[in-house]
């Protein structure tokens, strides 16, 4: 557009000529341009003001709409919604393989006090101390009259105690609903279940958290608020109960200070029962001892955490490996002249077996010398690899929080001497659970099995360790140990028990050598030996059998009878039919069922 100049020369010159004031012309032009600008600015501003108005109006609409949306949403659980991370008391049940309850939550109450609202703190403290004898009246009174505005009195109370506290009638005493963990079977499977306690606590609920065992291992699964299905373990409550009863009896008969036992399915790896004595009641879990040996605490799980030199039960592994490698056959004669010396070290047998024994007899009669000679043929790398493939070099992977603490103790330097001693179960410490896994692999046709506490639906298909033929042969040898070897007290009519005994001198706690009179007696085996279904391991700590003229400590006299009784009790519960040849019932006609 063309702009008119403020001082158009032509007009100014003319005005000068005519004697007019040129300033007036400029002022007039300025005024005109001003008006023009104003009109333009006003029109532009009009549009922009409208835009502003629309913007503002839509902002009002947005905010109002948003308010309406928030106001229209439902308030879910108004007070619980105040906490971002609500305390969830929920914890799923734990049941055994047949659905019997092992652990469950029940409703209870906690008692707490708000001293500012108390009417008569002295009376409340006196009455509370009467209801709960373990509480100190002075302590309560001090809490109630001090600065504190909130005092937990009891974390959980019985209905009767609840009523009694209610009857005190003090408005400063309040009840907080919460759930508690109940183990209805008491000490049954205590070490497996572990126990529970309270995590974060609020007055409206409290977290029930696992402190040990499967409770702790499956913490997240059990506490998952969306989970309603119980956790199904592989345990069988009846088998576990029978086993614990037999083990308890055996432990006192054999004057042992501790005992453990495992029954495991050789195909699936399911633990049917596992116990360690002494045990405890998870409803009232004792404190972890601060002094003394942790291994003597009832909390200690000998079956999993107790790593011992298990002795002759290990002989199954070099024998099986030698058969598998084709180094020997069952009838190969092995030199058993003793003592066998290796450097400064001497290997002795429990008794002299003469100049030589067949491989079979080395196993059945448990010759240390013979086993050591077989191990020499195998050599260090192959022995190590074999034990590794059976899981003996690392902790078991069972679903318990304590599993990593059951780490085997390996020789620092796997020397030739280690090769010899490990072959008969010294120099390498492992837990009874390791041994159960190893025996299962030997007995089930030769494949690796890892122990599990969860119910399985099908057999494990693990790595092959030995051939089925060798496995059959080993099962036969284990059976022979019972029929004509060291475990003759282990015969249970109809169930074809087979196994291997082990009596290991306990190493001195202070180090250096072994006790003469303290042993770990172990009987590990399978039943029925013709087609093994279950593997068992029974371990007694420092047993001594005193019925004879002199104290007997060997496994054949201690662990074997206990194991036999255990099989006698549990095999029917496991649904095995006894292979008993019944005398013909002449004169009786059997009708169909």
């Amino acid at each position: 557009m063309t702009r008119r100049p403020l001082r158009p020369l032509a007009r100014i010159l003319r005005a000068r000529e005519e004697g007019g004031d040129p300033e007036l012309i400029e002022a007039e032009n300025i005024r005109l341009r001003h008006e023009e600008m104003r009109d333009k600015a006003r029109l532009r501003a009009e549009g922009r003001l409208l835009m502003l108005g629309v913007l503002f109006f839509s902002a009002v609409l947005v905010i109002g709409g948003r308010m309406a949306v928030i106001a229209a949403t439902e308030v879910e659980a108004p007070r619980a919604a105040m906490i971002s991370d609500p305390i969830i008391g929920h914890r799923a049940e734990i049941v055994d393989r047949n659905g019997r309850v092992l652990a469950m939550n029940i409703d209870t109450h906690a008692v707490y006090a708000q001293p500012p609202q108390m009417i008569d703190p002295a009376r409340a403290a006196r009455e509370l101390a009467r209801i709960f004898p373990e509480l100190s009246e002075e302590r309560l009174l001090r809490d109630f009259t001090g600065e504190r505005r909130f005092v937990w009195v009891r974390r959980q109370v019985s209905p009767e105690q609840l009523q009694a506290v209610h009857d005190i009638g003090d408005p400063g005493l309040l009840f907080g609903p919460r759930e508690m963990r109940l183990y209805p079977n008491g000490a049954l499977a205590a070490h497996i279940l572990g126990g529970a306690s309270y995590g974060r606590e609020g007055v409206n609920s409290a977290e029930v958290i696992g402190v040990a065992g499967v409770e702790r291992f499956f913490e997240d699964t059990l506490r998952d608020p969306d989970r309603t299905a119980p956790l199904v373990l592989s345990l069988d409550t009846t088998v576990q109960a029978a086993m614990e009863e037999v083990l308890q009896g055996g432990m006192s008969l054999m004057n042992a200070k501790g005992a453990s036992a495992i029954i495991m399915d050789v195909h699936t790896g399911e633990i049917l029962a596992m116990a360690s004595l002494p045990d405890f009641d998870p409803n009232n879990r004792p404190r972890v001892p601060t002094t003394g040996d942790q291994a003597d605490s009832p909390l200690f799980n000998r079956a999993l955490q107790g790593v011992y030199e298990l002795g002759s039960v290990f002989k199954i592994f070099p024998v099986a490996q030698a058969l598998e490698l084709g180094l020997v056959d069952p009838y190969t004669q092995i030199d058993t002249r003793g003592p066998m010396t290796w450097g400064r070290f001497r290997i002795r047998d429990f008794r002299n077996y003469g100049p030589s024994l067949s491989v079979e007899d080395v196993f059945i009669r448990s010759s240390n010398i013979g086993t050591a000679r077989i191990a020499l043929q195998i050599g260090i790398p192959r022995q190590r690899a074999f034990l590794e493939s059976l899981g003996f070099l690392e902790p078991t992977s069972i679903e318990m929080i304590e599993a990593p603490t059951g780490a085997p103790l390996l020789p620092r330097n796997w020397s030739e001497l280690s090769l010899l001693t490990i072959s008969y179960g010294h120099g390498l410490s492992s837990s009874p659970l390791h041994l159960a896994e190893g025996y299962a692999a030997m007995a089930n046709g030769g494949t690796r099995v890892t122990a599990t506490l969860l119910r399985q639906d099908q057999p494990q298909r693990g790595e092959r360790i030995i051939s089925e033929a060798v496995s059959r042969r080993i099962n036969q040898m284990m059976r022979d140990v019972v029929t004509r070897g060291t475990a003759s007290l282990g015969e249970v009519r109809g169930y074809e028990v087979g196994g291997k005994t082990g009596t290991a001198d306990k190493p001195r706690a202070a180090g250096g050598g072994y006790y003469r009179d303290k042993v770990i007696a172990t009987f590990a085996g399978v039943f029925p030996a013709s087609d093994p279904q279950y593997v068992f391991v029974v371990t007694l700590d420092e047993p001594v059998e005193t019925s004879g003229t002199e104290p007997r400590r060997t496994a054949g006299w201690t662990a074997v009878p206990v194991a036999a009784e255990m099989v006698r009790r549990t095999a029917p519960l496991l649904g095995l039919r006894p292979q008993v040849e019944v005398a013909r019932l002449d004169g009786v006609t059997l009708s169909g069922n």
Partner: protein
Amino acid sequence: MTEMVYGAVPERAGDPIIPRWWRTIDRWSMSCVFLLFGIGLLLGLAASTPLAQRNGLDPFFYVTRQSVFGGAALVAMLVVSMMRPVVVRRLAVLGFLASFVALALLPFFGTDFGKGAVRWFSLGFASFQPSEFLKPGFVVLVAWLMAAGQEINGPPGKLWSLLITVVVVGLLAIQPDFGQAALILFSWGVMYFVAGAPMLLLMIIGGVVFVAGTFAYSRSAHFARRIDGFLSPEVDPRTQLGYATNAIREGGFFGVGVGEGQVKRSLPDAHTDFIIAVAAEEYGLILVLVILGLFGAIVLRSLGRLLRERDTFIRLAGVGLACTFGTQALINIGVAARVLPAKGMTLPFVSYGGSSLIAGGIMVGMLLAMTRTRPQGEIGDIFMRRGTR
């Protein structure tokens, strides 16, 4: 003739001030302000009693103070609204200078009342927040500068106003008070927009902000987390925002009932920054919409009246005042509704607070003074056949 109708209000000798004021004032907006103040007192009765009890004062201590300050604010509003725009401009510029000095002295003499930001002067019986008083003066000054900048041979008003804005925003940012700083920046932007900012420039600025935001969001995990946290539907219920959201939910459409609300007991700022949460809980969405409607009415009516205004200064000042006032309210309510990130800002006339009330009164007084009906030269248009395009 044109000088007579332009710019200045023609003054007839003997024309009494008050009847003329009553004839020309925007009575609807004024009524809205009175209603807002009434709602503020009503909410104060509910929201401030727990605080008074906590502080060991008479239960209605804050309500009494609020009505005293509110009375002063209303008087200030009426007096200011009776002034001519030129007088308003002079006083506002003086007021701006005074509050600017006060703002600059805050770091030396101010107090933070334990809230972590130095925003107040403690006068013993009351406290004084310079930034509240700065806003109306600032808006009028900027409007004046911009209007002058449009005159032929005028000063570079836009540049000067930008410089002043930068200094003020800097002073507010060191308190720190980013909410007020953003508001000041925003009101300058609005006035610049109405004064005729080039569209191209606006689009470039918008594009740069968008690109920078996207870049920051994709590159900076921290920034992205802040934005995600703000956008996420869940809010930590233990924060003030969480309590406010919960209160709005509790209130629903019709509220839990007068005096039945709980949020005022848990929120420390229930009587100031989060008064809207108290309103939403006790009286429901209805009252929130009423409050929003009142603010909306004031702003939209003022903008509508300013559409006809021909004087650049009055138009700019009016738009700036209306938008500052309305935006402050929108920010306050938007924070509670979680449309905007949390910023401490009072709700004009409704929140408790002496400085906020009186400054609000002055501001609305100025706004009313700007939006008074004036001859806009319609007769001149008819005579000279202009302005009818």
